[in-house]
Structures are given as C-alpha cells and as structure tokens.
C-alpha cells in the first residue's frame, strides 16, 4: 500500500534538506519531539538542528526571515501552523517576497515556500478551518500550489524553490492521512496519468481518457472527494466524469485543462473556499474566453457558502462544500436540469 500523504511530505522535506545545505525550515513547534502540529516535520530538527528552527509566534516575522534568507541567496520553507494565520504574513508575502522578484527592475530570485495546512472538516472552527487560496490569487510574482495525492511533494516543492518565485503551498489537513496514489491506479475502476506541459495536471478517468461527459476540476485538497463523487456518478447515474487536479493553482494552467474541457463541452470547478472571488471564477473566465463555442453549458462553480465556518460538525456541514453539492452540480450540468 502506498505511503500516507503526510509521510510523502515528510520524506520530501528530509530529501530537500539533505540535498541543499542552504535550505532552512522555519515555523512554530517544528522541532522534535513535537515535530509540528500535524507531524509533517518529524525527525527533521534532529538531523539538521541548525537549519530547522522552531520560532516564536510571529507569522509575519517568520516569513520575513525567510525572505531575508532568500535575499541572501539561500532557500527557505516556512510552515504556518494553520493557514488561517498566513493572514498575519500577508504583508511579507505581498509587499516583500513577491514584489522583490521584479520591483527592483530586474529579476531577483526569491526562493521561499510558505506551507499552509488548510481547510475544514476537522471541527477546528472559524479561525482554524479556512481555505484562503483565493486571497492570494493574482499577486504578481507569487505562485500557488496545492498538495494532492497524485503529485509527489518532493518534485512540487523542488519545482517551487527552483523557480525563483516565492510560493504558497496549500495542504488540506484531512488529506494528510490519505494514501498517495501510485502507478496510475486510483482503484479498480479509475486510472490516472499526469498531463499538461510539465505533467502538472493529474487526470483521473475510467475506461478511456479521451471520453467523458463532464470535466470536474478540483485543487488537490478535494481530489479524494472528487474521485468519490466521480465514482458515485458513474455507478448511480451512469455519468462519466473526468477529474482534473492541477498541482499549480496560480498562475492558471488553462492549457493543461482545455483539451479535456473542449472534448467534454462541460466543466465544473469545485473548491472549499467560501463564495466570492474564487479560484474557480478565474478558471471559468479563462475557459469561457478561450473555448466558449466548445462549451455546451457555462462552467459551473461549486464552493462553500458565504459564511464563517462553524465548529460543531452538524453546522460545519451546512457551510463547507459537500460531496453531494459537487455530485448535484455535475449531474445538472450533464443533464441540463
């Protein structure tokens, strides 16, 4: 059985720190024996005590320190304990790290990644459950990626660090305990492969990757849920739904999605962000502009409600996007209901 996602991420950090003596890892409560709130950093400080540092509760300051390391030609990865707190580092991300790549009139590499444990469904309440990706969409110089069970974390993080652009890496907290998919197999029905120019988009299909009734685009955090929905659609409604999971959320990789979207003529985007100014809206606009005539229906957006995320499980479900919401949206788009 494949490793858990959190193990893959932990091993990725081990490998990156081993490969690069100029790479630092900073964050709150990272060091052993605690090893981070989600145990992603377990074992790292024992091997590299000089470069894996537990910090004060200073998200803005930590990302600033990472920016300073990057400015000095080093590399840095920051863990924000809960991505909600990345709001405290917004200035350093927006006004320093991202802008410094260009505002001095020449390309200045800023090799830093801010890791953001993200999302709800764990009952942590309004300030520990959000999906803040949308707030970082469209910042010049900044790249957004999301952890997925299809994409090897070492390759994604190495790619971000190598790009010279600062990156945010969103990690769905429920996904940590899922298994990675391996060898092109999702389950007895579904297969997957990596497509797009740099293999950035995971494509999940049944029988024939060139045939489907609808394309369902989700970030990595919803990948497992989207696959479950596709399975239900197939078995209950006889709808063939292809799931596309781009690793990179921003800048948009529309080219990697367009062939499948054009073939199906139908597209649904699902994400856990609350309504308004979403990643999906950007995707929809891009697809509408480029493939309007190939679409049989407008791109449908599915997201959480325009509300704070409650703590109690029965209330949290009323706000966060549910599998049934995604299922209904795909079915409506396909049947024209």
């Amino acid at each position: 059985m494949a490793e858990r996602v959190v193990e893959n991420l932990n091993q990725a950090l081990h490998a990156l720190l081993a490969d690069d003596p100029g790479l630092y890892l900073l964050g709150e409560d990272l060091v052993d024996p605690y090893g981070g709130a989600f145990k992603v950093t377990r074992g790292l400080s024992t091997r590299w005590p000089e470069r894996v540092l537990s910090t004060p509760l200073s998200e803005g300051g930590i990302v600033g320190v990472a920016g300073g390391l990057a400015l000095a030609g080093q590399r840095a990865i920051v863990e924000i304990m809960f991505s909600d707190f990345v709001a405290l580092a917004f200035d350093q991300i927006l006004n320093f790290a991202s802008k410094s790549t260009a505002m001095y009139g020449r390309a200045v590499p800023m090799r830093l990644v801010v890791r953001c444990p993200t999302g709800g469904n764990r009952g942590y309440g309004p300030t520990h459950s959000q999906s803040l990706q949308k707030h970082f969409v469209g910042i010049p110089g900044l790249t957004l990626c999301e952890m997925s069970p299809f994409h090897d974390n070492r390759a994604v993080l190495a790619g971000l660090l190598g790009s010279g652009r600062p990156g945010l890496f969103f990690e769905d907290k429920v996904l940590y305990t899922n298994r990675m998919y391996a060898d092109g197999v999702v389950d007895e029905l579904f297969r997957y492969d990596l497509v797009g120019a740099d293999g950035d988009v995971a494509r999940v299909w049944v029988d024939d990757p060139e045939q489907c009734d609808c394309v369902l685009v989700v970030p990595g955090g919803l990948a497992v849920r989207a696959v479950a929905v596709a399975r239900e659609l197939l078995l209950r409604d006889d709808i063939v739904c292809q799931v596309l999971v781009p690793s990179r959320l921003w800048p948009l990789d529309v080219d990697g999605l367009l062939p499948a979207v054009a073939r199906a003529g139908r597209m649904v985007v699902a994400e856990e962000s609350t309504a308004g100014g979403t990643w999906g809206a950007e995707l929809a606009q891009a697809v509408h502009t480029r493939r309007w005539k190939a679409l049989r229906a407008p791109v449908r957006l599915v997201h959480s409600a325009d509300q704070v995320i409650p703590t109690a499980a029965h209330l949290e479900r009323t706000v966060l996007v549910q599998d049934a919401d995604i299922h209904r949206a795909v079915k409506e788009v396909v049947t024209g209901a």
Partner: protein
Amino acid sequence: MTAAVTAAPPAPSRLADDDLDLLLLIRHFELALLDMFGRGELHGTTHTCLGQEYVPVALRPLLADGDHVFSNHRGHGHYLARFGDPHGLLAEVMGRQGAVCRGVGGSQHILRDRYLSTGVQGESVPVAAGVALHLRRAEPGHLALVHLGDGTWGEGAVYEGLNMAALWRLPLLLVVEHNGIAQSTPTSAQLAGDLAGRARAFGVAHTLVTSTDTNTVRAALAPVLRRVRERGTPAVVELRTHRVGPHSKGDDTRRPEEIGYARAQDWYARYARAYPEQFAAHDERQRRHVAEVVREVAGRPASRWEEAGRG
C-alpha cells in the same frame, strides 16, 4: 543596557573634507529634488533627509562591503553614503536611463549589491534578521543594519524581528533616526514609553546619541558596531535628530517655532558658521556638482524595463 552619549559641544568639530563633501552632496541632492518637484519636473513623491544627512555619513567608514544595509522611505542619504552615485539615484527618481532599478522602484525601492530599501515601515526588520541568520552561519563578522524612524516602532514587525534576533543571537543593528515626528504626528502622540525601554525589554543593548556632529556620532557608533560583529548580538542605536524639511514635499504642518527649532539644530547652518572658509568652498562645489548631475540626467532618455526583468 542604555548608554548615553552627551550632546555635541556648542561648536561642531572640524570634519574631514570627504565627510563634508558627502554631507553636502546629500544636502544639495535633496534640495534639488524639492526644487524639481516645485517646478513640476518630478513625478510621484519623495522623502528627503534634510537635517539627517550625518547619520549615514557617520556610519560610512564603519561599514564593510559585506554588510547588508536596509533603508526606508527616507533613504537617499543612505544610498549616496554607500555608493556615492547621485547619477544612478536621480535617474531612478526621474525614470531615466542609468537608473539603479530601471525606474521601477523609484525613490523608495532600491536594490544594489547588499543595499535594499522598501516602502513599507518595519517590514525590513525581520528580513534583515533572516539575512543576519545567514551571515552568522556563513560570514561571521558581518552584520545587517536597518535604518528606521521613531514612527516605525508602531509596527509589530519590528518587535517580531528584534525578538528573533535576540533569541538567536543575530548580528542585527537597528539604527533609529528619531526625528520626533512621524509624518505629521509628534512622537509624543504615537510612541508610549521610550525606545530604551523597548530595547531593554528584549535584553538588547541600546545606545542614545544626541549629537548631530558627524565625528562625535561616529565615535559613539564605532564600539556598537564592533560589539555586534564580535558578539553576534543585536543592538539598537537611537539618534536624536531633526527633520529640517517636510515629510514629503510641501506637507509640513508643524508650527513655525517647531520648524524653527529643527532648523536651529541643523548641522548645515551651524557648520557654516563654525568653519566658514572650508564650508563655503565645499558647499559651492557640491551645489555645482549636483546641478550638473541634474542637468545631465534630465537630458537622458527614459529608462526601459526589459521583459526579462519583470519577474
């Protein structure tokens, strides 16, 4: 933790010619900018350091090329003291060819070698702490210096950065140009307690310098920089200074007697009275030098931002 250096003697000490030239270069550069703004020849905004020129001039021989300097919105003097390059700076402010940052950064956003300025208050302190973290490991003996004002101490980033620098024993030096006013707000209305107490709370050494005499200030700063280098620990120096000009351009709402007080403290007039012959010759030379820089740079074509440099 707090070491006070007594005020300058009534008469300023005699300066070496190169120090005087640099002070006057900065003075006339700033005056030329305000003059050009007044004539509508400059776009955007600027913040001049009139009255505070001696701070980077005093620091200049105390810094090595390997040290990092972080400047702020009021940074022309910091840049000129480090590089002696009025052409590149003016071209940056004017968006002309030869601009240090192609005219993208402008007055407040400059990166050259190990010198960086940004326009957000306090942001540079944790960034400099990160640089100092690298220096401690890779280049011991070098330091990261941040210029900031008294108003900057309203920003939480300052404390987050100072806290980590103290915890991790980083060679970080905060040079505070305490000019008693944050844009239009007097320090008494925006800063509770004092900087000495704030530094003490972090266990960080604090040095107060009230003199505006370049030689005296340099002598007071030299041991501080030496300690930061040798011990690898942070320090705060607080320079009581006087903003002779407006915050930006034509936005000075201080009462006439307040502006008069700042002017009475200005090193420029005091030095002119104390050493009239030395002063007159150098002052005239730098005035003409800056006028020639303005004439030459203004005649250059517009700067170009290459596609490859857009990040």
